[in-house]
């Protein structure tokens, strides 16, 4: 294992210390590992909290700030955070209008957030939760833990954050989050595995000439393993199942999000973006907005994911609204 770390058990704590030094506008609770925007709680504004295992940076801590998350709870690498963290985050951002938990659909995250919501409710905080499950790679989802939450999480955090900033109610922000989840679909591919620092060895094995289509952001197995192929074929293997699933149809306006798993450089992301854009043009699907870069990663894994979100005027307007966070900033 080659990593720029000190001790494996200090990875999350030291990353948070560095984050605080780099971003003094964030407030970080180092005992409980909670990242909070410095002006929280904003009176009368719905608080938006998310969290999950670390290793997906900038998700979620890098999205804390004006127009996006009010707080994030990073767990250990690839391990769900705990209810005491989530409770602390929830109370820290409750400005009296309630708090929305945006939860990625992983058994641990869901169980821990459920417990946190029960504890917060017992403390008198109005909490709602939306579970994001946009990964079309998971088939037979009624016989499994269900579809995983991946790229649409980033989009939901941005859109809900904008809605909360605009003074929308908890019920309205929750409805928007559900709409993003309902209209968002993703699929990823891995070219290499990744190594959890405490494990010291790759999470899964992948041959030099192989790729895993439908990979999860923790290296969960996808739909199939096949020989590496040109970007045009990889793009098709990701786009076809996404388009077929919702389905996206001719005339639809979408937000196209091409994301790096961490180890794939931007130059390759643009090649994939180019291929995906051509495929969507052939289908009459219009790319109204886009996001390209590493936003929901899987440590140093090489690979990418494609997320498509069906847009309407309201979602587009909220996407365009000002945001100011360490990882996403515009209009502010």
């Amino acid at each position: 294992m080659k990593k720029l770390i000190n001790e494996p058990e200090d990875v999350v704590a030291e990353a948070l210390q560095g984050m605080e030094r780099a971003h003094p506008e964030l407030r970080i609770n180092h005992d409980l590992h909670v990242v909070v925007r410095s002006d929280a709680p904003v009176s009368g504004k719905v608080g938006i909290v998310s969290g999950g295992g670390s290793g997906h940076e900038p998700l979620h801590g890098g999205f804390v700030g004006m127009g996006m998350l009010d707080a994030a709870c990073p767990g250990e690498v690839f391990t769900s955070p705990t209810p005491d963290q989530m409770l602390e985050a929830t109370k820290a951002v409750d400005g009296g209008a309630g708090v929305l938990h945006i939860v990625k659909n992983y058994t641990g995250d869901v169980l821990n957030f459920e417990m946190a919501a029960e504890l917060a409710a017992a403390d008198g905080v109005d909490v709602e939760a939306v579970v994001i499950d946009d990964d079309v790679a998971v088939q037979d989802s009624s016989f499994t833990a269900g579809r995983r939450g991946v790229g649409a999480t980033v989009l939901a955090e941005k859109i809900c954050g904008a809605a909360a900033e605009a003074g929308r109610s908890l019920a309205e922000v929750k409805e928007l989050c559900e709409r993003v989840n309902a209209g968002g679909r993703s699929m990823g591919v891995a070219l290499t595995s990744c190594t959890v620092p405490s494990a010291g060895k790759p999470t899964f094995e992948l041959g030099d000439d192989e790729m895993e289509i439908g990979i999860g952001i923790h290296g969960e197995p996808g739909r199939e393993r096949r020989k590496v192929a040109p970007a045009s074929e990889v793009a098709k293997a990701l786009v076809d199942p996404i388009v077929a699933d919702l389905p996206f149809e001719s005339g639809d306006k979408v937000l196209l999000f091409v994301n790096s798993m961490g180890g794939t450089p931007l130059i390759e992301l643009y090649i994939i973006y180019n291929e995906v854009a051509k495929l969507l043009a052939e289908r009459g699907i219009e790319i109204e907005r886009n996001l390209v870069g590493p936003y929901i990663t899987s440590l140093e894994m090489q690979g990418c994911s494609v997320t498509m979100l069906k847009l309407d005027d309201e979602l587009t307007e909220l996407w365009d609204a000002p945001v100011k966070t360490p990882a996403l900033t515009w209009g502010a």
Partner: protein
Amino acid sequence: MADGTTVTVDDLVAWIHRFSDVIAEHAEELTQLDSAIGDADHGTNMRRGCRAAVEALAATEPEDVTGFGRAIAMKLISTVGGTSGPLYGSFFLAFGTSGGSTGALDAEGAVACFRSAVDSIAARGKAEPGDKTMLDALEPAVVAMEAALAEGSSLGEVFERGTAAAEEGMHATTPMLARKGRASYLGERSIGHQDPGATSSWLLVRSAAETFAA
């Protein structure tokens, strides 16, 4: 020490000490099992959580079953993380609530606590026996304990029968297709691997038998 007919709070504390030791001994094995169908951290997470639970018991010195359950539950919930934290946390929270403000449980009371605790895991995890989870060791264990109790068995026998059933249930997870948690994404590929959660659950029941009947 355990007198063979009742389970005192001291016995419950000794159970957790024993469980923590056994988890530490089996941590590598649990992680190994988890790496086959999960995310290779069950042994590490459980060892960290159990150590913290032992420390929490020393710090709080619970006087009744509720206090015992709550102290462990809150510690496991806040230190284990992942899926096991809230599930084992729910187990002990319900165990304590069922036991109430008593300082000692008879066999019937102890089994009632286990029943309540196992039901709580099923509710929290929305799992059923056969899903290849902790429940596949715990549910048969409680059923066996209830049967032994109905036959008038001693406290020691009740927990021995529970342990045997838990072990059998744990082995039975190997050919199962996982329907819950991360292992479920493997589909058919989850078949042929023993479930790590069922394995730590067997150790939990076995530790109780070793402590209560000692």
